[in-house]
């Protein structure tokens, strides 16, 4: 059996989900027997070098760069998995969605906040190289089709492990009570 090829990324996330993936401990040795990593911070491959089987998405989309990467993943992966609360429903970054407009958020962060001290020219970062901020933080499945969802903040290592094993082996996924958590 040829190895499944896996890519991972963290969009508007905190890399906690990636940490959780590493939390599978010694099973990581089993994992690399089962899969080969392509574009991923785990092996530091920056661009897709081949078509992948599984794309693991951490984080929602808060800027144009996130959207670009997510669409790139959709193009290059057969299966996409939203991993963690941020990818699934925006998570903590999305707490800005319901309370303030993006203008208010930017003004608070760069102009008005008590800790702003050195911005005498009152500039909200506008360099062409910077990604553009979206009006709100979007769950990934509102931007591209997502095939599977693994909740948690971060998802328990066992949940990620069980899901990957199920996908690779084609067996039904084991879902004991303790692994489905939203925090």
């Amino acid at each position, binding site marked *: 059996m040829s190895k499944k090829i896996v890519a991972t990324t963290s969009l508007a996330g905190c890399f906690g989900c990636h940490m959780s993936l590493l939390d599978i401990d010694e099973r990581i040795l089993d994992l690399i027997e089962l899969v080969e990593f392509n574009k991923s911070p785990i092996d530091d491959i920056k661009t897709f070098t081949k078509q992948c089987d599984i794309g693991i998405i951490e984080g929602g989309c808060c800027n144009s760069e996130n959207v670009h990467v997510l669409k790139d993943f959709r193009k290059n992966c057969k299966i996409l998995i939203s991993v963690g*609360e941020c990818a699934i429903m*925006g998570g903590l970054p*999305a707490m800005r969605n*319901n309370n303030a407009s993006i203008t208010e958020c930017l003004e608070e962060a760069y102009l008005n906040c008590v800790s702003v001290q050195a911005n005498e020219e009152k500039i909200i970062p506008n360099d062409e190289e910077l990604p553009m901020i979206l009006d709100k933080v979007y769950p990934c499945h509102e931007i591209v089709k997502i095939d599977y*969802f693994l909740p948690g*903040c971060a998802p328990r290592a066992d949940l990620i492990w069980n899901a990957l094993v199920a996908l690779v082996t084609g067996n039904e996924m084991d879902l004991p009570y303790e692994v*489905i*958590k*939203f*925090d």
Partner: protein
Amino acid sequence: MNKIKIRINDIVCRGEKGQTVLEIAKDNGIYIPTLCNYEGIKPQGSCRICTCMIGGRMMTACTTPALDGMDIVTNSDELEKFRATIVELLFAEGNHFCPTCERSGNCELQALGYRYKMMVPQFPYSFAAKDIDADNPKIMIDHNRCILCKRCIRRKKEKDNPNWFVFKKRGAKVQINIDHELTADFTDKLAQQAMDTCPVGAIIRKEKGFDVPIGERKYDKNPIGSDIEGLKE
């Protein structure tokens, strides 16, 4: 004779006249999920999660008095699917950021999400603009997390005292409203009671929280309802 017999999921259950279907089910080790129900306060079937087939009709178990010979189904695939849908609706309607919430792990809504293995979002999240009311010195009300179950409204200090929690507006705009004057001298005990009455993290005591470590909270290891179902064994 005050004893009655009813059939729940083809099991003969005994109870007393005057008990609700929900109460008899519970006494007989059958768990019917609830959210708006709270032991000791008058039921008002508003969350609809305890809806069962009672005598062939959909009725809420928390409000329906049990009658001798009733035939009840609590756990058909269809009912369980409907319940899961309601749980998900509530998650999408409010702004439930579980990772930041003090009630996470002890939250009844979240626990039902776990019980129903809520993983695939079918409703878009509303991200509705909702306030936090922190005017009271002892508690704060986070409307983002409120599921409008009315438990706080129905649990009063004494029978005839004026309402201090009420509903305001109607439809999708409905929200809990608190009388700040009447609750200005809230004691710690009443504040704790208000928080305990809330199934989610919408009523939170100030200056206190996160006192149970992750892993030891109520629903970390055992699903909601497992205490009732445990009675059977």
